[in-house]
């Protein structure tokens, strides 16, 4: 949990906890006070961890549209950006394309790196051949500070080794959990070795953008949803973690079309970047 999360969750959560603590002052309605406070705590947690669920609900219920720039509009369901050009509607939508799963869930370090590298260009070309509509694959990349990155990896490895030894010493150790810890340690170890061989660590944000056109806002938006579903299917072969972007991040990615953050700190503040 980063510093900012601790501050926001800490202070707002504390206010709700104080309300629970003083619930007795509300006499016969003390139960209502407790329920209200618990609901507040839940909403605070949702805002922090899954605001992409809550924000579209609010805009749909209140029927609120957003205008991010001249001639552009984000409809109330917050899943695309629509541009009207001479009566034709262009809907733009985004998909995250993080490879977290690839690294932490599906990557098998025993498979030779050569094989993985060789299959990459071919998989990509197969995807391009199968897609019959406009799309963009974006990769924002930046260099990490080597020493800090190495220390971070070593810290993670130490923590995983501690968890592994704890699991191994347990009364009934779970073989699956042990294997999982060992795999993660191997992944981190291989990264440390790559750093030692002189490779520069990079952070990255990956996302896919697609544009659909229609004679009405709904036609464009429906066509876009169809395209996005197809992209989700074809990109499955790349073993990416793909999710449609809704809510606040839609506006951020829209702005990324015109300028990208100029510093690492700014970029890391906007997204969970992959390192």
């Amino acid at each position, binding site marked *: 949990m980063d510093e900012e999360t601790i501050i926001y969750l800490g202070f707002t959560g504390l206010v709700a906890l104080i309300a629970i603590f003083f619930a007795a002052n509300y006499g016969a309605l003390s139960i209502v006070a407790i329920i209200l406070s618990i609901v507040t705590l839940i909403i605070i947690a949702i805002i922090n961890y899954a605001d992409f669920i809550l924000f579209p609900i609010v805009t749909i219920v209140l029927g*609120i549209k957003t205008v991010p720039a001249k001639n552009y509009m984000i409809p109330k369901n917050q899943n695309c950006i629509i541009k009207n050009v001479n009566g034709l509607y262009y809907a733009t939508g985004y998909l995250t394309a993080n490879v977290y799963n690839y690294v932490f869930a599906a990557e098998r370090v025993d498979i030779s790196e050569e094989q993985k590298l060789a299959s990459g260009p071919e998989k990509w070309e197969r995807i391009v051949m199968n897609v019959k509509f406009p799309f963009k694959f974006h990769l924002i990349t930046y260099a990490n500070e080597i020493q800090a990155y190495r220390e971070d990896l070593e810290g993670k490895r130490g923590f995983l080794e501690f968890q592994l030894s704890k699991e191994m010493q347990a009364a009934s150790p779970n073989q699956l959990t042990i294997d999982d810890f060992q795999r993660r340690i191997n992944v981190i170890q291989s990264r440390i070795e790559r750093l030692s061989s002189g490779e520069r660590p990079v952070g990255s944000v990956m996302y896919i953008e697609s544009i659909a056109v229609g004679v009405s806002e709904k036609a464009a938006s429906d066509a876009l949803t169809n395209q996005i579903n197809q992209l989700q299917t074809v990109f499955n072969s790349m073993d990416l973690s793909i999710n449609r972007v809704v809510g606040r991040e839609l506006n951020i990615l829209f702005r990324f079309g015109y300028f990208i953050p100029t510093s690492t700190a700014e970029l890391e503040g906007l997204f969970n970047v992959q390192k």
Partner: protein
Amino acid sequence: MPSLKSLLFVAFVGISLVIMIITSTLQIPSYIKIIFLAIALFIDILAMSTRFYSYLFIPLYKMKDKTIVLSNEEPFYIAPSGNAIITREGSDVYATAFVKIPIYKSATEMNEEEKIDFARLFSRIVSISKTPYKITTQMYLINKDDYINKIRDKLNEVEERYQKSMSEKETNPSIVEREKGEVTMWHNLLESIGRIQSHALLNYVTVTATGSTEEEATALATQQADELSSGIGATLGITTTMMTGEEILLVTQADYTIPFSTVSEEIRQKTVSEGL
């Protein structure tokens, strides 16, 4: 100086706490206390929402017709030099430059070793610069607008001539027949052009720089773009070029990615074929 986000957070948490403490100590009926508690907790939720949505608070306050206007300006404009776009965010000026990476190699033509080498070279590109930059592969519709518009103009012209010949009784029937054939020809050509979409693939790199003035930001962005261009060119052994004017619009504007006439002709044919 504290940001608007921090100020709003502190203010909301403070107001929420004050309302709650005062309410719980006052000797008022419980139901009034509960109303005030609900208000305090709502403000607490607002405090949390400032973490991600502080940019929405002022536009939300000014909202009209259930529409939040974040900006009424064009999202960017092309720098006078034509090789970058300028965006303003508050007092900050951002200039973004684009570098085209022409890659004509295909994995189907490569053997295993070449594929590995190519992937390795691409990995090297990813870590070529310390400042953030964006690598994009874009698939877009080839712009057939000019061609379609020329065919449309020609079709209108021959249709007009054909109608005129039809209305004139003294016109030779063979001329009318020839003009009818010409109309059919141009019509078929328009239909065949509009029926199929032609796609193209483009790779490019985007880099952004900030400055206090437009000129400063543009100079920095183009300088960074030049550095990236040389790095990528040397790594992949290709000639990279800075994108300008219409090329920039192709990668930033939806209506250039899907050209208007190219797609409107396709939509028209689809509508006709569906009998709408």
